[in-house]
C-alpha cells in the first residue's frame, strides 16, 4: 500500500514491527518460567526439549494440529465480540451446548452422509449463537456487561449439557457419562491417517479467513471496530450499535458452538462429559487473542503458539516428569505481561501529552485489546 522506494527490507521490518510486543511477552514469560523451573528444581535443559518434542515431535504433530482447530475456533469466539467491545468469557458453555446439540440431533434423527455432518454442525453453531446472543440485550437494554453475563450463563449451560449426557442421552452400562457412539454418517471425514485431523481444520481456517476479510475490508468490519473503540461515536455515525453487539456476540457464540460440534463429531465420536471443557480451550484461546494485541491477522499464529505450549506441556509431563501446570504459568505470564505493557504504553502516552489529563475511564488493557 505505502511501498516506498526503500525496498523490501524496510517494508518487511515495518510489517514485523507490530509483532515485537508479542515476541517480547512470550520471551519474558518463558524467561520467568525458567526461573520458576530452577526454583522448583527442574532442569530447563530437559524440560524445554521435552516441550518442543511433545508438541512437534514424531507422531505428536497430528495431535497438535487436532488441538489447534478448537483453539483457533475458540479464539474466534472471543475475538469476534471483542472487536465490538464485548467480552465473551462464556466459551465453555457455548461449546458444551453446541456439542450436546450436535450429539442429540444425530442420535435422534440419523441422517445420510453429507447432511449427517452439515446439519448437526449448523445446529451446534446455532445453539452457541443463542447462548452468547442472550448477553447482547442484557448489555444493551439492561446495562449488565457481557463479560459478566457470558461467564454466568456458561456454568449452567455446561451443567445442562452434563445433565443431558448423564440421563436422557446416556449410554447405559459404561459407567462413564457419555453418549453412545454416533452413527457413521455423522463422523467427520478425517485428513491423514490418525483421525485426529479432520475437515474441521479447513473449516476453521476458512472461518478465520472470512472473519479477517469481514473485519478488515467491509463496512460491517468498520462499524464493528468503531463500536468497539467508541460506542457513542458509532451511534453518532448512524451505526445500529445494539444490533451490532448482538451480531458480534452471536457470531462468537456460533464459533464456540461449532467447535463443540466438531469435537463431538470427531474421535471418539461421542459426547463425553467434561471432554470439551477439560482441555481448557476457552482460556487458552483468550490468551492467544490477547497476545495478538488487537491485530486480527496475528490471531491464527498466536493460537498456534498457545496450542504448541499446551500440547507440549502435556508431552513435557509425560517425557520429562515436569508438571504440565508449568505451561499454564507460561500462559498466565503472557497475559500479565501483555497487560502490563499496554498499561505502561497508555501511561507514557498520557504523560507525554501536555496537560496530561486522561479523558475517559476506559481501562488501557480493554482499549488495547479492542483496538
Amino acid at each position, binding site marked *: 500500500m505505502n511501498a516506498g522506494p526503500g525496498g523490501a527490507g524496510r517494508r518487511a521490518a515495518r510489517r514485523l514491527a507490530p509483532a515485537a510486543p508479542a515476541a517480547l511477552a512470550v520471551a519474558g514469560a518463558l524467561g520467568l518460567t525458567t526461573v520458576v523451573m530452577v526454583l522448583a528444581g527442574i532442569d530447563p535443559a530437559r524440560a524445554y526439549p521435552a516441550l518442543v518434542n511433545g508438541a512437534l515431535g514424531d507422531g505428536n504433530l497430528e495431535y497438535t494440529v487436532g488441538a489447534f482447530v478448537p483453539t483457533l475456533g475458540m479464539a474466534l469466539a472471543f475475538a469476534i465480540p471483542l472487536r465490538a467491545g464485548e467480552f465473551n468469557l462464556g466459551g465453555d458453555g457455548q461449546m458444551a451446548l453446541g456439542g450436546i446439540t450436535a450429539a442429540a440431533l444425530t442420535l435422534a434423527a440419523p441422517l445420510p452422509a453429507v447432511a449427517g455432518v452439515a446439519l448437526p454442525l449448523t445446529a451446534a453453531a446455532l445453539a452457541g449463537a443463542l447462548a452468547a446472543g442472550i448477553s447482547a440485550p442484557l448489555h444493551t437494554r439492561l446495562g449488565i456487561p457481557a463479560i459478566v453475563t457470558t461467564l454466568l450463563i456458561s456454568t449452567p449451560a455446561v451443567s445442562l449439557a452434563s445433565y443431558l449426557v448423564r440421563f436422557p442421552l446416556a449410554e447405559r452400562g459404561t459407567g462413564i457419562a457419555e453418549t453412545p457412539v454416533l452413527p457413521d454418517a455423522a463422523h467427520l471425514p478425517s485428513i491423514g491417517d490418525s483421525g485426529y485431523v479432520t475437515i474441521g481444520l479447513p473449516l476453521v481456517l476458512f472461518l478465520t479467513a472470512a472473519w479477517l476479510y*469481514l473485519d478488515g*475490508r467491509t463496512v460491517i468490519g468498520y462499524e464493528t471496530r468503531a463500536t468497539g*473503540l*467508541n460506542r457513542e*461515536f458509532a451511534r*453518532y455515525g*448512524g451505526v445500529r450499535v445494539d444490533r451490532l453487539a448482538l451480531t458480534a456476540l452471536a457470531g462468537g457464540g456460533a464459533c464456540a458452538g461449532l467447535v463443540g460440534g466438531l469435537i463431538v463429531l470427531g474421535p471418539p465420536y461421542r459426547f463425553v462429559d467434561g471432554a470439551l471443557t477439560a482441555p481448557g480451550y476457552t482460556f487458552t484461546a483468550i490468551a492467544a487473542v490477547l497476545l495478538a494485541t488487537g491485530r486480527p491477522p496475528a490471531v491464527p499464529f498466536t493460537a498456534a503458539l498457545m496450542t504448541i505450549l499446551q500440547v507440549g506441556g502435556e508431552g513435557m509431563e509425560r517425557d520429562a516428569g515436569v508438571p504440565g501446570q508449568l505451561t499454564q504459568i507460561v500462559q498466565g505470564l503472557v497475559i500479565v505481561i501483555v497487560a502490563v505493557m499496554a498499561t505502561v504504553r497508555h501511561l507514557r502516552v498520557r504523560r*507525554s501529552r501536555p*496537560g496530561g489529563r486522561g479523558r475517559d475511564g476506559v481501562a488501557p488493557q480493554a*482499549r488495547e485489546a479492542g483496538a
Partner: protein
Amino acid sequence: MPTGDGAVPPAAELVGVTKRFGDVVANDGIDLAIARGEVHGVVGENGAGKSTLMSILYGLHRPDAGHVLRDGRRVRLRSPADAIAHGLGMVHQRFRLFPELSVAENVVIGAEPTRRGMLDLAAAGREVERLGELYGLRADPRARVGRLPVGVRQRVEILKALYRGARVLILDEPTAVLTPGEAARLFEVLRTVTRSGVSVVLVTHKLGEVLTATDRVTVLRGGRVTGRFTTSGTTAAELVVAMIGRSPAAAPARRSPTAERAPYALEVDGLTVRDRDGVVRLAGVSFGVRPGEIVGLAGVAGSGQRELVDAVTGLRTPGPGDSGRVLLSGRTVRGGREPDVAYVPEDRHGRGTAAAMSLRENLVMGDQRSSALRGRFGLSSSAVRDRARALVESFGIRAASVDAPISTLSGGNAQKAVLARELSRPVGVIVVEEPTQGVDVGAQEMIHGLLAEARDRGRAVLLQSSELTELRALSDRVLVLYEGRLVAEVPGDEATDERLGAAMTGAPASADAPRTPPADDTSVAGVEP
C-alpha cells in the same frame, strides 16, 4: 520582571521553567512572578503552554529546567500533595467533588477534623462557615453538593483549597461553566480573597475577564512569554496581538438578506422531553431555522440543550413521556441518527471521534454505507483514502498522515476534521455544538468562517455555544433556554451579555419572551422573529 514590592518576595515565582514533551517544547524558559494579594491573569491560546505551566506550579509535572519559589524560597514540588503542603491550591476546570457528600464533607476531605478518632462533622461545618465568612464564600455546610448550582460548587472547590491552607490559588478556566452573573460573583469573591493576602492565578482565554478581574497579565505564546502587562494600562487589542502575534481578522459578516421568508428547513414543534425519571427536560419548545440563517442557542449548561440537539439529530429515541415533533423540510425526524442533519458534537472525544481510529476512518464515519465509498469487495480503502485526503486538503487539517490515529492531532485540527466531515455532507441542516471549544484563535477564525460560508450557501445552522461572543458574532437570532423552556429570542445585533445573561438565569420575562406555545398546543409551529 516586576515582583510587586521590591522588599517582599513574590508569593510564588517560576524561574526559567522549561518543559519538553518529546520534540514539543511546551514551556521555554518561562519566568512568572505572582505577587502577594494580586490576581494574576495567565492568558494564551490553546497549546500556548498555560496548562503545562500550571501543572508544574501544582506539582503535576516536573520541569526539565528551572525551578519554583514560594515566598522567595526554593521548593521542590513532586506531587500535588507537595504543592498543597507549600500553600498552593488549584481549582480544576472539572470539579473534583463527591456529589453525594455534603459541602462540609467535601471541603475537609483528606484532612478531616477528628474528635476521639471520629470524624467531627460539626467542627467541619463550623470551619466551612468560618472560612465562608472570612472570604465571602457563603455555602450551606450541610447541603449536598450534587444538588447545588455550578457556581456554588465552584465555591466549594475554592473553600476546599483555602481550608488546606492555600495562599496561592490557581483557577483553570473558572468561568467556562458559569453564567455571566455567576462569573461576576466569582470575581467579587476573588477580590475578597486577595484582600486577605491570598494570591490568585487566573488561567483563561477570555480577554474580557482578564481586563475586569486581574491586576496584572502574563501572555504566553508557543511556550514563551510574549507579553507582561499591568491590566489597568492595557487593552484587549494589545493582548490579542501578544497572544496570536498579529491582529485578528475581521469577524465574518452576518447573513445574506436573501433568505428572509424561505420556509423553515428545520422546525421544532412543541417538543417536550422527559428523562428516565419522568423529569421534564424540555417543555413545549417551538422554533424554526430557515435556510441561510444561523440561529444561536444559549443557556446555562443543563438547560435542555443536550436534549434538544439529541432530538433534532435523531440520537434520542423518543420516550413515552415525550411529545411534539422535529421536522426537516416538513418530514418528521424519527429515532436513529438522522442522515439529513450534519452534526458537530460538543464532546469531540466521546462522540465526535474515536481516538484510536485513524484520521481516515474518522473522516468517513456516517458515510460508510454510501455508494461513493463502496468498492468491489466491501468498503473501498482507496475511495476512503481519497475522500480523506481531499478533506484534509480543502479544510487545511494538519496531520502527519491520514493513517495516523486522530488522537495524534492537535485539538484544533481534530475539530477541523469533525467540521470537515460534517460540513461536507450534502444536507441542508447543520447542528453545531461549541464549535470552538478548546481550539486556538487561528482555528476559531477559520471555523467561524466555515460556518458563515455554510450559511451563505443556504444551509440552516443551529449553533449551540456557551461563548456569548461567538453567539453574538455569528447568530442572526439567539434563542435562550432556561430549565427546558425557550424563554427569550434576541436578534443577533441586540444580544448583549446583559440581555442574554438575564434570560439564561431565568430573570423575569421581558419583551424578549417569544410567543412560545404551551406544551399541549401543537397548532403553532415556530417562533417568528
